[in-house]
């Protein structure tokens, strides 16, 4: 076995990255236009995170100078960062996009869902998501998922058929040939569409740099009160922390992913600008999910299990 962690690359010494952003952009735009041409009621799943913000940016480019012909859908866990929610609302307003919000808190309040003992709400998103898809009769749902994120995601097609229960069956996926996408579905079924499938985390950041895409501030280094749980820095907040024995500390951190506050960790970072972040990501020895997502640590197949249930 070759030792792989012998040398640590310093930010700034990152190897030069080759430029395939034009090809990735062109592919994503092609996918947006296919969906616009073939489906009746598409929607873009938008969290205000970096991937879904890039998704909206690409949608704007795909239909320019006409407006984006889809609304946005956000599943609000009730544990979201306030600055991300503000960003979400601002993007919808700026681009004159209709925003549909499905709220986990509503489901908890009227008893349709129960709070989990561990306090995390990420797995609870599936029910409101599937209800929102059903109630609005959405037939194509764009997501910002990338195949480089996780092993189960690496198996995902760009057009991924979900049955009437929103379930993914990895053994029955349609072969995806050339750039011919099959969007056929029966009533009640829908298709999840992943235009960023072939992008890596670094591609996303290089595209954000190139296109000067604005993101919520929490992606860049800032001072924040955090506490440590399971080796991750979680933000103090109404989502259940710090608990007894967990000591809050003031740290300079940033987020690599944006999700439910109860299970999304911050990383210690001095990356204040996009350029800093690119250098940091290029040199990082941890994946974004490994570094900051508690829910992926539950089992070897945590992501696959959630996807089978209808989660993204």
């Amino acid at each position, binding site marked *: *076995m*070759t030792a*792989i962690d012998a040398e640590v690359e310093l930010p700034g010494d990152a190897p*030069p*990255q*080759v*430029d*395939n952003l*034009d*090809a990735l*952009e*062109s*592919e994503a*735009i*092609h996918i947006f*236009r296919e969906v*616009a*041409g073939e489906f009746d009621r598409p929607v873009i799943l938008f969290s205000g995170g970096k991937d879904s913000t890039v998704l909206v940016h690409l949608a704007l*480019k*795909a*239909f*320019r*100078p*006409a*407006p984006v012909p889809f609304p946005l859908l956000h599943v609000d866990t009730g544990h979201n960062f306030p600055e991300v929610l503000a960003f979400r609302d601002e993007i919808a307003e700026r681009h004159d996009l209709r925003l549909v919000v499905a709220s986990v808190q509503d489901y908890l309040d009227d008893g349709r869902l129960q709070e989990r003992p561990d306090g995390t709400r990420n797995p609870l998103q599936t029910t409101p998501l599937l209800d929102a898809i059903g109630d609005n009769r959405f037939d194509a749902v764009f997501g910002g998922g990338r*195949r*480089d994120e*996780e*092993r*189960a*995601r*690496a*198996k995902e097609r760009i057009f991924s*058929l979900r049955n009437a229960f929103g379930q993914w069956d*990895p*053994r029955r996926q*349609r*072969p*995806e*040939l*050339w*750039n*011919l996408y*099959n969007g*056929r*579905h*029966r009533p009640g079924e829908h298709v999840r569409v992943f235009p960023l*499938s*072939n992008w*890596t985390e670094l591609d996303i950041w290089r595209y954000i740099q190139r296109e000067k895409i604005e993101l919520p501030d929490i992606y860049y280094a800032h001072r924040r009160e955090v506490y440590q749980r399971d080796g991750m820095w979680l933000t103090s907040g109404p989502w259940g922390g710090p608990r007894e024995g967990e000591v809050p500390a003031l740290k300079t951190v940033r987020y690599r992913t944006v999700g439910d506050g109860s299970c999304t960790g911050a990383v210690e970072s001095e990356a204040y600008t996009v350029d800093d972040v690119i250098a940091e990501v290029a040199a*990082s*020895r*941890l*994946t974004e999910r*490994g*570094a900051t997502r508690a829910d992926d640590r539950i089992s*070897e*197949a945590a992501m*696959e*299990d959630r996807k089978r249930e209808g989660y993204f």
Partner: protein
Amino acid sequence: MTETTTRTAPDSGTEVTLPVQTDLLRLATAGSVDDGKSTLVGRLLHDTKSVLADQLDAVHRASADRGLATPDLSLLVDGLRAEREQGITIDVAYRYFATPKRSFVLADTPGHVQYTRNTVTGASTAQLAVLLVDARNGVVEQTRRHAAVLALLGVPQLVLAVNKIDMVDFDEAVFTRIATEFAEHARALGYQDDAVVTIPVSALLGDNVVEHSANTPWYEGPSLLEHLERVPVAPDPHDAPFRLPVQYVIRPRTAEHPDYRGYAGQVAAGVVAEGDEVVVLPAGVRTRVSKVDTPNGPKPRAAAGHSITLLLADDVDISRGDLIAAADTAPELTDELDATVCWLAEKPLKPGAKVLVKHGTRTAQAIVTELSARFDEQRLSSVDAPDSLQLNEIGRVQLRTSEPLPVDTYAASRRTGSFLVIDPADGTTLAAGLIGVPLAPFAAR
């Protein structure tokens, strides 16, 4: 880095500077079960430092849980529960790695006979395929079948990785025998000798995957990664006639753009420039390109692979499904398709079946009028007029479509010469369709 190249646009005669993606290689793996594909892919990711510490930790933990003494690199890529339980790859997965010289998108495909359809999936977009054999077994039936499928789908470059070379004591004679046998098969499939490279490797130990191995002093060729970094990537052919399947009509009808009417699509072949004469099919109306609009604003021209929006000089009735093509080299318009199909569904194909054909952006109804041959990919022979085509079988069919389609042969254009066969009842993708019979050895028999 994006390099540029200069060539003459076929229609306007002007000099064109085009960005060429020399930096991204799309490749696929193929090979029998237990030849070690997942281990090879895991090794490539590992040795190119594309595996991050947390992923490696997870593999170390999972390997230890299974009682293994050394980490099982295949666990890096076999992501599904069933795959990890059975130790096999079930479904195609896409992997990303990069070196300072090039970025790679790798379609990691399963070798099981019942999953040959995933080899078709991986191969449909691949510029290169790495075919594995076990050095102890050499070229087997599945190797010959996979090579034929790769040739059929027009994968331009092949690498034969003779894996587990350590298990035959790094014996040069074994390697040479396999290389010679495979070269002969590849030649019969129409590959030029310089499009096929054979490399002795041990995915498990890392010999000749990234670094040259001291265990094979008799081997003077490149390591697998060196070859992947250097092999010329054929860009989409810019000298092919221009083709744009219309995906969507962009009509803002806003105060700012009251008269904008653009035809959006991804250039499937060739180059288009402002002023070019084009024909809209199936209507057959001729007009000129008044503007090439792109997501980054108007440009003088665009080439294969670019997503663009064309504005035309005349007010022509055009909608999704139409094809805009170079006026002088327009494709044939036909409702009788003579095609090769790779059957991907459990339900067999029978003559008389009513199906849907998705060609470009148009989906037409079709009837299978004739099933004229079934190909035996291993023996490179064919059987005339079989009763049916079963899962994973390849055959020649005639289809009559409800409307005329503008088609090229697959040999001339991978994009406008291909189509999907879809089940109208439940939307299942039944087959990959290739117009014409692209494999000479099959056609001859």
